[in-house]
């Protein structure tokens, strides 16, 4: 076989072992259980927690591999390592890393990790390494109920809350009744037994309360010529309900036609919305997001930002004016302006006639304005010194605007009424609205 062996490099011998591996792979193909392991990593790459999900143990060394990758690869949400596919999300410095060896819908893994992060931060009252380490038993318990054999199970926070007591509750119980047989089990499996999966069977409250919050974020881009390139509202209807029994609610808007691209909580019935644009639903117990929506093509932002930079012979003059463009009728609060100084700026001397200016060592400059004063227009001005050798500035910063307006939804969406089919005793209904800046970029 001179010929064949002569081209050794181009051939592969299919050994028995390989065929065995092939069969193994075929078997793997049909695994519906998908995620094999979840790791929580600290911001220094240390494994805080590891949860194996299937019989195929994933070695911790995969985390070391992951952490050693270059940033451009490491930041991607989906990564192919030599042995596994990795999904990751980063929340508050903690990396949630999931591993699999089978083909699966990537969004499912990412959505699930997002849900894990949300539930944990909800349970622990925030997310950081110490919180997770202090409460790792809770985290294990939660993961146990959220995913079994690699397939997501219960991620509805209200039901989880019934199965696993949040940490403060556990410690409270412990201090009051030590040695109490079982602190949660009585109410426990009712969530899964309920015919409405998001609601426990029969909660009872002495006072019945339901609150509706419209929370809107404005995303806008203003280009170099001061034109409004894009201006949209991303809004959520958040609810908090503490209602006895099995309430059936109807929420209607005064002007539902402004809404686009709605997404609903599973409790919302689709047909009433399609026919009359009313939200009809049996709410989960506690806080939840009823729907999200988008309102596009808004004509105006409440604020204007007018930046100007002129540069000549190694120095730049900066001036930025901020003011109210269209008065929303309520006070605009917490106005901030932040931007990244270009790399070639060696030093900056900036000051303002209102509010405070801070420049961090990473060249992030933040101007905290607060409210717009009635007597003057807030103005940031000063000079930037360029690195030696540079005549003019060629890279310009983008200004990020922050603001908050309480009591108004800038999209103009208004809630008309909230009805209950059967009105429980002592019912309190409340409505609120607020708008804040989402991604509001002003380019220069």
């Amino acid at each position, binding site marked *: *076989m*001179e010929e*064949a*062996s002569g*081209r*050794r490099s*181009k051939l*592969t*011998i*299919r050994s028995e072992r390989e065929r065995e*591996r092939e069969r193994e*792979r*075929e*078997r793997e193909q049909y695994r519906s*259980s998908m995620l094999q392991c979840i790791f929580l990593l600290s911001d220094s*790459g240390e494994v805080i927690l*590891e949860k194996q999900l299937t*019989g195929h143990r994933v070695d911790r*060394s*995969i985390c070391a*591999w992951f952490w050693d990758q270059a940033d451009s690869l490491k930041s991607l*949400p*989906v990564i*192919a*390592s030599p*042995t596994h*596919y990795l999904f990751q*999300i980063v929340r508050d410095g903690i990396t949630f890393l999931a591993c699999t060896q089978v083909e*699966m*819908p*990537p*969004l499912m893994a*990412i959505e*699930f990790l*997002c849900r894990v992060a949300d539930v944990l931060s909800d349970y622990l009252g925030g997310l950081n390494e110490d919180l997770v380490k202090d409460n790792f*038993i809770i985290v294990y*318990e939660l993961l*146990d109920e959220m995913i*079994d054999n690699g*397939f*997501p199970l219960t*991620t509805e926070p209200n039901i989880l809350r019934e199965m696993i007591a949040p940490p403060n509750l556990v410690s409270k119980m412990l201090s009051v009744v*030590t040695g109490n047989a*079982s602190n949660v*089990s009585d109410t426990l*499996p009712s969530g*899964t*037994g309920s*015919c409405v*999966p998001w609601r426990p069977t029969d909660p009872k409250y002495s006072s019945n309360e339901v609150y509706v919050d419209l929370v809107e974020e404005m995303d806008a*881009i203003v*280009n170099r010529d001061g034109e409004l390139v*894009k201006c949209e509202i*991303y809004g959520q209807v958040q609810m908090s309900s503490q209602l006895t029994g099995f309430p059936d609610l109807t929420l209607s808007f005064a002007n539902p036609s402004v809404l686009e*691209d709605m*997404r*609903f*909580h599973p409790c919302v019935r689709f047909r009433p919305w399609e026919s009359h644009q009313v939200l009809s639903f049996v709410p989960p117990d506690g806080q939840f997001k009823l729907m999200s929506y988008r309102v596009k093509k808004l004509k105006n932002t409440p604020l204007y930002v007018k930046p100007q930079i002129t540069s000549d012979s190694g120095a730049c003059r900066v001036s930025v004016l901020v003011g109210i463009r269209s008065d929303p009728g309520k006070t605009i609060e917490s106005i901030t302006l932040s931007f990244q100084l270009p790399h070639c700026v060696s030093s900056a001397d900036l000051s303002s006639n209102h509010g405070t200016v801070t420049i961090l060592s990473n060249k992030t400059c933040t101007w905290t304005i607060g409210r717009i004063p009635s007597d003057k227009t807030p103005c940031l001005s000063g000079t930037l010194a360029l690195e030696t050798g540079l005549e003019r500035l*060629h*890279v310009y910063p983008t200004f990020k605007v922050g603001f908050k307006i309480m009591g108004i939804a800038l999209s103009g969406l208004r809630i008309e009424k909230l009805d209950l089919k059967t009105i429980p005793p002592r019912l309190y209904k409340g409505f609120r609205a607020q708008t804040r800046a989402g991604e509001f970029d002003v380019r220069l």
Partner: protein
Amino acid sequence: MPPPAASSRYPSPSQPSGKSEVTDLKSQLRQLAGSRAPGVDDSKRDLFKKVISYMTIGIDVSSVFGEMVMCSATSDIVLKKMCYLYVGNYAKGNPDLSLLTINFLQRDCKDEDPMIRGLALRSLCSLRVPNLVEYLLGPLGSGLKDNNSYVRTIAVTGVLKLYHISASTCIDAEFPATLKSLMLHDSDAQVVANCLAALQEIWSLEASHSEEACREKESLLSKPLIYYFLNRIKEFNEWAQCLILELAVKYVPSDSNDIFDIMNLLEDRLQHANGAVVLATVKVFLQLTLSMTDVHQQVCAIVSVYERIKSPLLTLVSSGSPEQSYAILSHLHLLVVRAPFIFASDYKHFYCQYNEPSYVKKLKLEMLTAIANESNTYEIVTELCEYAANVDIEIARESIRAVGKIALQQYDVNAIVDRLLQFLEMEKDYVTAETLVLVKDLLRKHPQWSHDCISVVGGISSKNIQEPKAKAALIWMLGEYAQDMSDAPYILENLIENWEEEHSAEVRLHLLTAAMKCFFKRAPETQKALGIALAAGIADFHQDVHDRALFYYRVLQYDVHVAESVVSPPQQAVSAFADTQSSEIKDRIFDEFNSLSVIYQKPSYMFTDKEHRGPFEFSEELGSTSITPEVSSDIVPAQQFEANDKDLLLSTDEKDDNKGLSSNNCSAYTAPYESSNISSQMQELAISGPAASATTTQSSFDFDDLLGLGLSAAPAPTPSPPLLKLNPRASLDPRAFQQKWRQLPISLTQEYSVNPQGIAALTVPQSLIKHMQSHSIHCIASGGQSPNFKFFFFAQKEAEPSDYLTECIINSSSAKAQIKVKADDQSTSQAFATVFETALSKFGMP
């Protein structure tokens, strides 16, 4: 990418060594184990917590296994959970100890608290110790009948776990039948969903060797069952909905009514808050439209489906976390490439926000490039130009490239050219570099813009350009438009004088060519520079530079006019640049919507089957570095396959040809071996059409001689050979194959045409191997890359141990397959060749 080193764990520096602490814990636990004192559960909790925190940071606490189990006799649920967690982690490593746990877990499975029953059952099934499966049957059986749905849910998943530990035990206990009836009758949606997941997996795996399982597997896709699930899809939680939707993707609808019914049922799923549900629904919709028979109807449906799914997807992009946006954008990209016009008016959705991570920005830039058309180009290019001044240099570069791509795909590039030229005025080195490359490409496609471009490009000082690609582009323009740029010869001369400082071979090659072109147009000014360039080029250590310089020199020597017609023929505009991805590959990815393939922009066979991909990569790598044998032998150990191959192939060589060499001398012996190998490899690479036919004729002489027939090279028209039966389970040791191949004479050489479908399918060489295997012809070795593939096959006669060995070389560009057959029983080799040809001709056919 090297595999992660197994030893590199993550010990935190402050972490205790653990030894003494663990012994300490052990004795404390022992004290508590028997105690019934009030408050003992609290102390246990603290200790358990300590044990588990050690376990979490990676300290081995398996030595307290016995104590942990003893302490777990408690009614405290948190303690139980901690104990289950601990046991689950260590049972696999300590099968003896886990017998201990079985007892208490079994008892807990009968606890009155459903949560304890459920948790105990889950832990029991998660122990995964093969010799303890008999203890699982009882608890699982009663768990499936439990009146609490929480326990049933866990029991169903438990059955699947049992199946993976011991499939036969699971089947013998008739659990699949129980699951089936639960799936159809249980009142709890989660139980039903888990049954579906478990049955899908079990029946798919069983299908290969049980007809009943095969029928059951198909029955999952029957119309009544699909509708049973789809009608009540809202009762399931979001993840179970994904599962059902994936099942629906595989369903083949009976007619168009069926299709519309399903679409109506699922329409509101597109507005679900969970992106995974939305994408799974989108996949069902796409699959349904693909299955439409009426083409006209299909086109209408596709457009309306695209319109329908567009807005939920766009919302997901802008409202989710960056990670979610990334996954959805990857899928949107697929749709956008298919139907850019549908998304043309939504371009603003793809504008980059300042705070977005660059992986999202990059995808958005691709999207903007894809949807640019006459109606929105102005806005898109304006937007892209703003990014060029972005602080993020990588994104700035990408956006300039995007502007260039749009310019290349548009007819009216007037405004874009102006924008590109403005980039050059920004005097930012990386902007200039990217722009120069683009201007070059643009000029190749639209030479009519040369005047506008040249005047600006001429003003750029070559000293400010460092990147080889950009420098090469500038030099190309200097050569191509030497007549329009007054100082072109002098700039070139300047560059040539600094030949030594220019390290990139690409730039040197372009310098040579540009000097030549310039010479033909403005000889007196360039002659000197050209002379220097040619001299420097011929002395260059880089092979290509040397060869090109020598070639130019000789052509010039031969005839200057010939040289001109060779080096500087009249310009021809490039009409289209090659697409990097074939449409066939794009189609494949599209079929795999809602999978990892989409993210990698490759069909799954290109990345999931790592071990198969290995050898092909391997040969590429060797091919590119084979000039120095040392290098290739350095590279070789990086591939795990190498050990195998070398073993198998070298061992025979050593024994038969190189008896004098001891095996530990292996590396010394590799080098000469390698070099002979390279020459043959080179030859093979050089072989295309003509050379291949030469070997055919030569070997067909062998064949003629052997059979003593005349000179006709065509297959002998022997009386129709008896039908040959092959053994479908033939096996042959690779070593035996090699030996036989050496010993046997070639009994037959033939050439066949391969049908175009076959050639298309050959993009996955593995598929041919599978295909031939289905005809009882087995592959023992394969290799090569497009267009030349080489396979070694073997087959065995049905009844007797008589082997056929075949070498098959397929050239995918000429669509010819050339086979050499060697056989134990030469009289039947023609019959085998017929079988082989028949099998090959069916390759790629549906």
